[in-house]
């Protein structure tokens, strides 16, 4: 019986560890990072992961040992202890210190993500409009102001300059959606009735999948998009071409 119990606890321990050790190699892990904020976030993830791992191994080891020993002796009685103030204080203070440490460690990253003081002053790079079940994007064009004739509109694909900080304005036309790009480690709900700012810096050029992460109705699962990061020169060229497009289309409409 107790062999069985020991095997179970140790099996759980080893199974969990082995599975976690195996996963990154299979791609069952954090996708390759593509933004500058990803680095501190992944570091926090790893750091807290380590604490979790140690806590888990400690608890399992203690549990296994206590059960192994305790299930052996059947004849005599257990020693009746009601507690130990020193022990209580030790583990309360120990875990408390770890928790406070974790709390403090993440404050700078949270500030970089959400503190309004960190918002880039350069103005809105693009407006993101979410609706059931697709994404639309508006760029301010050459004049840097949204809502003018040279605005550039795209659907499904958001093109942004790589290597510099971008500022998005998130809006929804109907229900709550969520702007999630796993490789950039950014996620922000898009709440109707509000314009929510979101900023980040893409570390490299490339194409990244844009996921809607908040339940938004039956088409939630198909509300996919793409973020394409271009080097600055390519981005400017892309934008210029689209502005001319938009103008000529406007002219056609006028005729």
């Amino acid at each position: 019986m107790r062999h069985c119990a020991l095997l179970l606890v140790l099996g759980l321990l080893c199974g969990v560890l082995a599975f976690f050790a195996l996963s990154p190699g299979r791609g069952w892990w954090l996708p390759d990072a593509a933004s500058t904020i990803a680095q501190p976030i992944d570091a926090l993830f790893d750091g807290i992961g380590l604490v979790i791992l140690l806590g888990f191994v400690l608890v399992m080891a203690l549990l296994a040992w206590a059960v192994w020993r305790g299930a052996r002796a059947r004849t005599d009685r257990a020693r009746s202890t009601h507690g130990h103030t020193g022990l209580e204080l030790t583990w309360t203070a120990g875990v408390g210190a770890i928790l406070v440490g974790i709390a403090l460690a993440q404050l700078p990253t949270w500030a970089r993500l959400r503190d309004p003081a960190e918002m880039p002053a350069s103005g809105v790079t693009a407006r993101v409009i979410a609706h059931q079940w697709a994404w639309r994007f508006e760029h301010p064009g050459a004049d840097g102001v949204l809502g003018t004739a040279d605005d550039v509109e795209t659907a499904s694909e958001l093109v942004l300059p790589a290597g510099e900080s971008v500022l998005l304005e998130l809006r929804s036309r109907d229900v709550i959606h969520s702007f999630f790009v796993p490789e950039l480690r950014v996620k922000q709900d898009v709440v109707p009735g509000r314009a929510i700012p979101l900023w980040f810096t893409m570390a490299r050029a490339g194409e990244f999948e844009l996921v809607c992460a908040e339940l938004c109705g039956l088409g939630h699962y198909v509300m996919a998009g793409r973020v394409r990061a271009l080097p600055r020169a390519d981005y400017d060229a892309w934008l210029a071409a689209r502005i001319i497009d938009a103008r000529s289309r406007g002219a056609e409409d006028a005729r």
Partner: protein
Amino acid sequence: MSSERRGFLRTWVVSTDHKVVGIQYLVASAAMLFFGGLLALAIRWQLAWPWTEMPIVGGLVLGESGRVLSPAGYTALFTMHGTAMVFFAIIPLLTGAFGNYLVPLLVGAPDMAFPRLNAASFWIFAASIVLFFAGFGVEGGAANSGWTAYPPLATVPAAAPGSGAGQTWWLVAITVLGVSTILNALNAVVTIVKMRAPGLTWMRLPLTAWGLLVAAALQLSALPVLTAAGLLQLADRLLGTAFYTPAGLYVNAVQPDVAAGGSPLLWQHLFWFYSHPAVYVMVLPAMGFVSDILSVNARKPVFGYKPMVAAIGAIAGLGLLVWGHHMFTSGLGFEMGRAFMLSTMLIALPSAVKTFNWIATIWGGRIRLTAAMCFALGFVALFVIGGLSGLWLAATPVDVYLHDTYLVVAHFHYIVFGGTVLAVFAALHHWWPKITGRALSETLGRWHFLGTFVALNCVFLPMHQLGIAGMIRRTADPSVYQLFDRLEPLNRFVTWSAFGLMGWQLLFVANVVWSFLGGVRVGRNPWEAASLEWETPSPPAHGNFDSDLVIERGPYEYGDAAGERDFAPQARRTAPREA
């Protein structure tokens, strides 16, 4: 038993005996657990083999017409799975079934403080189950905006095509259930505060009673807020008000014909103000059961009784202050996010204290690996896994990435299934002899534990990897994204394991049947336990105790100091009555 002459109806249907009400709750909520499990299988089928014909379960859950799921069907599935499990299975199992059965026994009272109110709360619960199922039958199907029912998806009928009336039924069912739960919690609090036997001081109360008491207090304070929020959402849906509907919506390219100006985030605050404490309602009583069972089977007192009580209180108190951690990415704001992160970090501390006290309780004990003990040990191991992954989620920058991914799903299933459901099985094995007068099979019980433990880890462990790889929850078909393609084997593995897990529960059903047919009859105190419920006959007659009790000590006097036997009962019987 005297009940034989009172007829089936009087004994089992209209009785006000707290034990009968508890058993009624047990049957109803176990059925809901089973139903929620079926829905979970349908969810898993869809995630492993999207849009394919579902065998057996499909016929049961979707009806003959709909063996292949529709997108709306999938959203309804997880909405109703979450609702059934949280509100109709786990909470009623803990506070309704065990709460009702155990509270008077643990405090030495003949019944609940208000027996008729108690019976009423069960029947209101039954009515809410009917309302819950009624939602499946209406035009457009059951509610499909998640168990969290975020507006405007939940309030603007046009936003969730298919869910015309389903959401309204859902709201009504939840509100009615809330009334039942509040009455039930009221009874528990009054009984424990006012009807303790002579000498049963606060510091002599078993931790099960503490867990149930504090959970009931949480219900009384947080649940009315959900009721209020639900009324506002009902008004939005039925009266056309706009508490949660902001201005300027275009749904399906038309401006919906509703009032505007409200705040969608208001609902989230009110909902989580209840539903975060609700997760502790789902774990505090379970922690109580486990403390008692570990102590009895390790033949040692609970280590650090007072810190344990303090931890229960701290979890409940802080639990009312951390709801914002479900909203880190909702546009909550920088400072609020920081404040809620800090309070969430703090709330992990009392749980850690409890964990170490459990280990210290069995440390150096003389452990009897009964089935109940196995399940209780399983609870500790799995609660720790679920709790620790909560630390990832509590860290705001990490949660920005992990929010609404399967890591969240893994986190809470480890606690609610690995933790609470195992604790419920532990409690069933432990108190079954008291409830029925017959033992469950230990052998079957241990096999049931073994398979359940292995299978549930196979189900919920890989969900961590799914979440870390970015797979979002509430998606009907992860293959839409290339990023998630490589996760297909994991998803299939999880599904196979879920089928195994569900199938393995048949062993428990078999055990129940075995117990009724041939289970050993037991006396008053088969486990040599010290607390009060074991002073009664098994099963206790209406009125519970057949002698007057004087409580002389705490509930955990086990081990060497205790006298001729290795435990000292809590109570001295005075004036025993002869039959």
